[in-house]
């Protein structure tokens, strides 16, 4: 099958599963006990009439199937609705600063983890059986079992409380005047350091292990032995012959892992009060802000599906044996 037909088919499949998934989530959200207006009673002057009024305004007084039809119509038109608590379009809410923050965190940490994990994995596999390899193996296993939020707390304890090297929370220093964009960037990166380091370390364990294990089995492949026998310099053997082949599984896994990646942000963002979509999702669940929940799941699922799709394309590029089917 040609590339174009393949992409067309995958796109249709993707769109349909996304829409159906959203239909499913619509009902799951409404299954949550509780009410979007319930949290408002914290405001002293709120009466039940006012809650009723809000429910009407938000269309919650209509029968469920009617709400569903409205929701689906909006979704097909590309509208995600209006947030109950923020009173603004969900799209604006998600694709604003919060999305940028989350993306910055995820890309920084996962990029680093992938890079370091791959290099270390290749290195350890090449020197397998040696002391350092075994030591790093044990470390990777330990890192693999550390809960991400606990590591975050430890980092805070050591680097923000004990030594005040890094800030405890937030993405920038509040109310600071920046003379230059670079200064702003610096401040942002300074705040990003701890949360990104946390995720990087946690992911590093997994990425390292996968890379090392595939590398170890690739090293046993005859073409690597052949490459050595051919008298090629070690660097060429390792990177051009072994690592390139060993990269295939980790690339696939990185794509398939998108779901976990996006999820993991919730915990890290909680620990570091990082104002991203993970926090938004948690708050939306607490407040039963259905439109925001739907919007977030839509975006996250879309990202995951797209990641899978692009992984397949990338895989086909990396491995000439793969055909589109």
């Amino acid at each position, binding site marked *: 099958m040609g590339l174009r037909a393949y992409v067309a088919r995958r796109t249709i499949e993707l769109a349909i599963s996304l829409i159906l998934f959203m239909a499913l989530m619509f009902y799951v959200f409404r299954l949550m006990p509780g009410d979007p207006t319930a949290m408002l009673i914290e405001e002293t002057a709120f009466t039940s009439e006012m809650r009723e009024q809000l429910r009407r305004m938000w269309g919650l007084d209509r029968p469920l199937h009617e709400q569903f039809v409205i929701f689906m119509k909006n979704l097909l038109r590309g509208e995600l609705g209006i947030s109950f608590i923020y009173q603004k379009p969900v799209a604006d809410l998600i694709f604003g600063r919060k999305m940028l923050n989350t993306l910055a965190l995820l890309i920084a940490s996962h990029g680093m983890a992938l890079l370091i994990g791959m290099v270390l994995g290749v290195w350890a596999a090449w020197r*397998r*059986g040696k002391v350092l390899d075994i030591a790093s193996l044990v470390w990777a296993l330990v890192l693999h079992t550390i809960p991400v939020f606990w590591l975050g707390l430890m980092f805070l304890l050591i680097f923000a409380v004990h030594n005040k090297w890094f800030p405890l929370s937030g993405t920038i220093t509040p109310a600071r005047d920046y003379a230059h964009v670079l200064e702003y960037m610096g401040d942002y990166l300074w705040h990003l350091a701890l949360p990104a380091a946390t995720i990087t370390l946690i992911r590093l364990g997994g990425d390292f292990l996968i890379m090392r294990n595939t590398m170890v089995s690739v090293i046993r*492949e*005859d*073409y690597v*032995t*052949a*490459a*050595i*026998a*051919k*008298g*090629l*310099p*070690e660097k*060429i053997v390792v990177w*051009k*012959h072994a690592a*390139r*082949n060993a990269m295939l599984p980790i690339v696939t896994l990185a794509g398939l892992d998108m779901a976990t990646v996006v999820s993991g942000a919730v915990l890290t963002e909680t620990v570091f009060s990082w104002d991203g979509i993970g926090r938004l999702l948690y708050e939306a669940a607490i407040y039963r802000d259905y439109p925001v929940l739907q919007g977030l799941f839509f975006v996250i699922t879309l990202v995951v599906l797209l990641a899978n799709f692009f992984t397949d394309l990338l895989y086909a590029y*990396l*491995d*000439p*044996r793969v055909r589109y089917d």
Partner: protein
Amino acid sequence: MKTATILEVENLKVYYFTQRGVVRAVDDVSLEIDKGELVALVGESGSGKSTLAYAIMRMVPPPGRIVSGRIVLSGIDITSLSEEEVRKLRWSKVSMIFQGAMNSLNPVMRVGDQIAEVLLYHGAVYDVEEGRKIARELFKLVGLDPERVMSYPHELSGGQKQRVVIAMALALNPDLVIADEPTTGLDVTTQAKIMDTIRDIQRETGISVLLITHDLPLVAEVSDRVYVMYAGKIVETGDVDKIFYTPQHPYTKGLIGAVPSHIGPKKRLIALPGEPPDLRSPPPGCRFHPRCSYAMPICKRKEPPRTGTGPRDFVECWLYAGEEVKKVA
């Protein structure tokens, strides 16, 4: 006719130091190959043939190590060289056609480039294009369409891949080519064609070849001399006719007896009973004695001495110890 010796292995010991004990994969082996000779190394799988081959390339995989002995390749003792020096010798002096050759091609690289890179990194050419040009020539030599240099391995058939590998082995015009089971995994007709190609090229270029195989009919057909290896030791060596018509060692006899006759119906005449020994704890004395039908009490106690059977030939067996060669009917 004593010509230049290309390879000389002397009292080589290669052990694997595993967690569960020391595997004596190659134990005190000596071997010689002259220029233009096609020497066969035969033996069951697990007898240490491949390890010997890797040792000659000086690429024994860990936890294996060359413990003692010398490997002299074109006059250079490679056991004492540094890794970088060895790297430069590899392929330029000795190249290899690997067991399961189709797997020794990198699946994500064009086959031409895999040949070109050899030339490139040994300084034979200065860019990939030039390398590909030479690759095309080599492809013609081994009977391949030169345009195939731009193909990926999965686009070629098994026989074609095999030819690519042979072409690659010839790229730097080495003194010695080690062919480790070069035809396994191919169908019979292709096997024959490939072997013919190797033989032709060998005759044409005068390259020495060390053929490692357990395919005895093939050995009988193409080789000049034969080394028989059992459990890490060379038990017998001699000219191909000598080995096939007057085998001395009971193991050699067994091997040849076990060969399906390529004339008559295919069946095992005398099967070798039992299994090759565990090289972590080989039997004391002669390593073959548990399977040997001629075994004597001494075989269990002491290792057999080497008995010369010709200028360069010998056999290691108590049957012939201290005696002149006895003809065994």
